[in-house]
């Protein structure tokens, strides 16, 4: 006899445990809540933390969007969408506005999120102090005592060595004036989107067995020294080669045929959306 697959893959007991950890995380913004990370049909390090959050949250009325480095069509994003659809039957979408639940790896969508949406981020390394202090027992104590010299020291060392902070992604942030948090490897460009976000942001680390959260309208400040203010990646003077968008996170591409570098939107659905609307306008003009 073949057993019926469980709704959203995880058994109800596991979901309950994950939801409890999530509630605690929301109650203590930026605090890493330990949880019993389950085996998932996916290797740890491929987003099992985010996937477990998604599975514990998803209901029959949800619409899911999954992105991987800004792309909706990457293998990882497609596999996760397939798993959720096969076990729940809920619709998936690529349009950010339509989704109620968005699981993402390394990006926050360009379209501003609303209070009716939840963003789930996949986290490889939840501990912002890990490079400074290897022992978990010590970092727990440092968090408890609000002792964040280590996070500042890492930035100071970068400035000493390279003249500026060199965090390409995962630039540490202070949550609600209390906990320093790793925002997952989102580019610095996305850090300000977390500040007073209307949507609930949940972060899950499956391998490291931690869940943490940024509740809606929480203050998020990126760590920066007084004489070295925080700066996102700068794309001024550059625009997407397809849709012409400016003020968004752009990928730099080296085009072999021409030997030139060009830029294009990193958020593929945002780009496709813009292209679609431009086409619509052209069609309307043509018919008039």
């Amino acid at each position, binding site marked *: 006899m073949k057993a019926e697959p469980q709704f959203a893959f995880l058994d109800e007991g596991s979901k309950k445990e994950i939801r409890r950890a999530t509630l605690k995380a929301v109650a203590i913004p930026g605090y890493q809540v330990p949880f019993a990370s389950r085996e998932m049909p996916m290797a740890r390090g491929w987003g099992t933390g985010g996937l477990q959050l998604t599975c514990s949250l998803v209901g029959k009325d949800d619409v899911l969007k999954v992105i991987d480095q800004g792309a909706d069509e990457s293998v990882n994003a497609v596999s996760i969408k397939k798993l959720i659809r096969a076990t729940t039957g809920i619709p998936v979408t690529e349009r950010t506005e339509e989704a109620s639940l968005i699981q993402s790896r390394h990006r926050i969508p360009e379209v501003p999120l609303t209070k009716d949406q939840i963003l789930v981020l996949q986290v490889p390394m939840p501990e912002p102090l890990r490079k400074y202090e290897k022992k978990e027992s010590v970092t727990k104590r440092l968090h408890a005592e609000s002792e964040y010299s280590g996070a500042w020291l890492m930035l*100071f060392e970068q400035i000493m060595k390279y003249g500026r902070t060199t965090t390409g992604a995962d630039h540490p942030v202070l949550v609600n004036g209390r906990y320093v948090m790793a925002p997952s490897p989102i580019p610095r460009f996305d850090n300000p989107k977390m500040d007073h976000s209307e949507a609930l942001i949940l972060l899950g680390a499956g391998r490291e067995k931690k869940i943490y959260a940024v509740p809606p309208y929480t203050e998020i400040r990126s760590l920066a020294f*007084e004489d*070295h203010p925080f700066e996102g990646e700068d794309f001024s003077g550059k625009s997407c080669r397809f849709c012409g968008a400016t003020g968004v996170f752009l990928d730099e591409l080296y085009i072999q045929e021409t030997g030139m570098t060009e830029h294009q939107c990193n958020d593929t659905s945002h780009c496709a959306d813009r292209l679609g609307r431009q086409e619509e306008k052209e069609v309307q003009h043509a018919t008039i």
Partner: protein
Amino acid sequence: MQRFEERPLLKVENLTKQYGPGCGECSQPGRPGLIKNYCPSCGTVYACSDVSLDVYPGEILGIVGESGSGKSTLMQCLYFDQDVTSGTLTIDDPELAGENLFDVSSQRKRYIRNHKYGMVYQNPVKGLRMDFSSISNIAEKQIAAGGRHVGQMQSAGERLLDVVSIPLFRMKEEPRNFSGGMQQRVQIAKALSNDPPILFLDEVTTGLDLSVQAAVIDLIKQIQRDLGISMIVVSHDLAVIRMLADRTLVMLNGRVIESGLTDQILEDPNHAYTQQLVYSLL
């Protein structure tokens, strides 16, 4: 002398640190029946028993004693690396007036460490982050004390490295590339970087060769003269104590057995153990 009219900057009363539960026999006053500092009936070790001491502003207090006499434990208790069993610690500071600092929360202890204390360990590995540059090592203490301005911290760090004679072109190098004496001097610069009123020096010259020892001792003397920092110097080397300390405590089996002016103790020791210690050296 004038200092006897002053109030002590740091005052320790009846500090006791025991490892083990203690029993009816060893808990009695005077702790009779101990073998050295060990209770044979319950196995408790009394690393420090009823240690009291005062440190006055700008003075260097020396602590001597053999291995296992409790001097490092005393230092670790004062620096909050270890919790005490009982005792009081007060610092003459408007922020901390009247508080027993052994009883305050761990956040507050950390605040005192970051703002009031400097520590130089015997082994630089304990006091330095070997894979961060020297200038960052010095900045770590400033950051912990609330520094958030890179330019200011860098120039303060450069000034301190100059004080301890580390060439500035090596400031961005990690201390693991340095010789033992240089590492010790970086550690001293780090300990000084938050302008602490109190500096702890735990066997700072042990393991250094003689010329480097002399340089480090010179440096400590100079810092005391120029900055007026109070220091507690732990050493088993009487020559170091003779050169540095104004007053000295002699510890044996976790107790202070003799205290007084350093010259007096070295020239005219009272206690039999101190006599043995002094004569075995000279």
